């Protein structure tokens, strides 16, 4: 693996009462870290990846997140 990939995603409660998408990325050094996407970006990411379920995001490149934003 030479780039960060999505290894998990889950719905979290946002500060403003909206559901947000917390995406967990594994970086090439093996360390995992989360990034939290707002509802619109999260939905766009799922659509862009053809994902109907958050688990479908696994294995996607970090680049898809930037593309979705």
């Amino acid at each position, binding site marked *: 693996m030479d780039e960060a990939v999505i290894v998990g995603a889950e719905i*979290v*409660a946002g500060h403003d*009462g909206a559901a947000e*998408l917390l995406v967990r990325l594994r970086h090439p050094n093996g360390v995992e870290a989360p*990034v939290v996407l707002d509802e619109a970006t999260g*939905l766009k990411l799922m659509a862009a990846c053809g994902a109907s379920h958050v688990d479908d995001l696994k294995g996607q490149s970090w680049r898809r997140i930037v593309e979705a934003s």
Partner: protein
Amino acid sequence: MFDVIVRNGLVVDGSGSPGYLGDVAVKDGKIAAMGQNLGEAHRTVEAQGRVVAPGFIDPHTHFDVQLLWDGAARPALEHGITCVVPGNCSLSLAPLKIADRPRLIGMFQQIEEMPPEAFTQAFEWTWEDFAGYRDALEKDLSINVAPLVGHSVIRLWVMGPAAQERAATEAEIAAMQDLLRECLEAGAVGLSTSFVDVDENGRPVPSRFAQYEELDALCAVLGEFGRMLQCVPEFYATDITLARIDQLAELSLKHAIPTTFSPLFDTLAVPDNAERAIARVEEQFARGARVWPQMQTRPIDISFSLLRPSLFFARLPRWVRILRQPMTERLAALRDPATVEKMVADCGPDGGETMMGRLVARGGDACPAELVGKTLSQIARDRGQAPARALIDLSLEHGLDVAFLSASAGHQSTDRIGPMLAHPLVHIGASDGGAHLASFSTYGDTGYLFSEFVRKAGAMSLEQAVAKITAETADIWGLKDRGRLQPGLAADIVVFDADTIARGDERPAFDMPGDGMRYVRSARGIDTVLVNGQVAYTAGAYTDARAGVVCV
């Protein structure tokens, strides 16, 4: 002869010391004496079987606008709050030039969900400078106010539209310093800034365009007064929170100022988030920095309707596909019996009882009033339907404008949060009072502190909890006259029942200008609230007292 005596209560003075039975006497707005057999007074408040404590202080609110037509910041005062800090997150109503009002209103609408009528119908906007705002504010206050001045409006005043376009020049930074100094002299308790907020067009608010050098220069002015820097950092992103803590610590050390960031959330999705942040705060305090994380007591709820696609359904592929369609196609799909059959089946053999049964119809929208507050499970039973089908049908019957709430979806683990709230370096706050009006209630966090973390979980004693939201808060913010029951200090007093104090259920209220809606919670267990020696709330009703002041 005293003005008021609060008799026979359990005096919990804010210091954290054990409570004791006694009286508190008030004269000329100050606490005049404490003990027993103190003498006579014009008015007696009987407090037998009740706690007598300093008024609570709410350090993170957005009551800037509401205070201009409602000097009690309802319903904050009835929850025992006697002092609020508005002006958080880089936004305040002064200093602001007339020409910049529309821009600020847009930010308030976007970030705090204020209806536009709140700015155009409810008060006369007479001021531009901070002193003028203070004058307008002080005319009709029932509650005390320690207002922050917002970095974004300071930038806007000095730079105009360029405040949202570029870094400031040296001359502009110097002008901002002068302006901040003027605001602090006029009674601002500190400066607020934001690293996350955007305006109604999605553009970052002015404070986010500031270089570190600009913030550093402004903190130098705060240092002249020893006043607070507040910031709102990125959420759930632990590494960034730690970076912000380090930035705040440097500013605190260099300028000898207190700093606070809010909110800090706990989340099971990133279980070490708050823990690592608090550990970093401990390290920075050990260096002498003052970086206070504000943590709210209440859990976070998620709300949604079928009007817009929501990530709430992200584990239901068919629902996601249907709800992200344009409205016409979405409605057609939701009206198609075969499609709905499959959607309901997706929710499990119980028709969504487990997955959705606990959702609550919120109200404040097109939802019939008789359904507000009911669970989807109850509604479905009454309709003789499966919960998932009831959700779809009820939404269709009302143009999809029926909001549902998934309660306690985040920051919800009492076992985890209790010890954090009790931590000596964690500042209980971040209520956001007066904000997010159409999304959720920001009132009653203090009641929830006692009901959930003192009575239910035993995470802290009654005395500790009182100290956290009174004396400790006053000390953090440098409010020298507040937060303690002590002769000579301001007589801000709350009388409450330790066995019943709590927050009421969330409900929609249509009391905003222009018949605007907001969610509120009434107080439970609060008997009487005195502000500067005058009874401002008692026996479930607000009085005509207007003793609130701007206090620093």
